[in-house]
């Protein structure tokens, strides 16, 4: 079973076309294993990136060094998954 402990989902908003392009470049860096949940489309529209725990420093540095604004949408993916599982077990018991 794959665990997602410490993985975060970042909501990123590109300010211009150049930043949209930079986000696409970020997605092409296979070693970072960034999983785009919502892809960058145009300036002002949010993109959501699941970032493995091990890649968080590199990705955040990339965003900050390119002045791309972001917020943390999900602090810890595994916590949400655990909560989802608890809900399903409870529902089934009911």
């Amino acid at each position, binding site marked *: 079973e794959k665990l997602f402990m410490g993985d975060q989902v970042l909501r990123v908003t590109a300010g211009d076309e150049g930043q949209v392009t930079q986000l696409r470049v970020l997605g092409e860096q296979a070693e970072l294993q960034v999983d785009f949940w919502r892809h960058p489309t145009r300036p002002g529209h949010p993109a*959501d990136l699941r970032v493995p725990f091990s890649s968080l420093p590199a990705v955040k540095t990339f965003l900050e060094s390119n002045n791309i604004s972001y917020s943390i*949408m*999900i602090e810890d993916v595994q916590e949400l998954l655990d909560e989802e599982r608890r809900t399903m077990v409870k529902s089934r018991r009911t």
Partner: protein
Amino acid sequence: ERSTSTFDFASYHTIDEIYHWMDVLVGDHPNLVSKIQIGQSYENRPLYVLKFSTGGSNRSAIWLDTGIHPREWITQATGIWTANKIAEEYGKDPSVTAILDSMDIFFEIVTNPDGFVFTHSSDRLWRKTRSINAGSPCIGVDPNRNWDAGFGGSGASSDPCSETYHGPYAHSEREVKAIADFILGHGNVKSVISIHSYSQMLLFPYGYKTAPVPNHQEMNELAKKAVSDLAAVYGTKYTYGSIMDTIYAADGIAVDWAYDNGVKYSFTFELRDTGRYGFLLPSTQIIPTATETWPALLDVMVHVLEHPY
């Protein structure tokens, strides 16, 4: 559950529970709903489709599918609720009744069963099929980049490790080929509505080229009405338009294939996002999501009924 009245539509369910529920739905509405199998998945799971029909032979039809990307759980859950709604509203709601008095509806609720099972057992965030890629350690193909419509272009990846890997050749995935064969074999499908989550969009072709479809204006106006009626329920705001204009270039996708194969009313939904949970939407979101999606779906289906071609 022994009856659809005791099934918990507000919960997420395993594939066994969903497949069992399909049988219950058929049992509860034997003169309206039947279950057909259109193929088998890579791991040999049955690909089931619910057929809603009041009779006739090879009537014009609407195709609905949910869950081609298995991690989008709100989508399959909305599919279950919607299928039940169609069955329950026939004979009550004038629009549903009019549609089913003239047309059939085919509804594939778990379009990618192998991936769906994998999201329950091993990787909650799995998106692709589970087929093995020769020469690569990475598993799976993005089934919504595997259709024969601009297949292999720049809006998909040739890397088997990518989430948008298009596969070795068009329709290499059994899950895709089964639908393509079914729709082509049927020959009278007038609308394809492929449902995803989560970006709050109602989209239509093309994704693989910038040219507008010939009936772009009609599609745009229909999409505008549908998202307006959706927003009237809970205020959820959708964007709409062609895939290329609204999201990005996407090659080898289902609705482009459908359109290029004569299905004029081809749409794809991206269901709701609370802005916090993404694909992990709590189950409390299922009923609201399905409820608000219903009038938009109905708008499209009624338009198809009223604009025969």
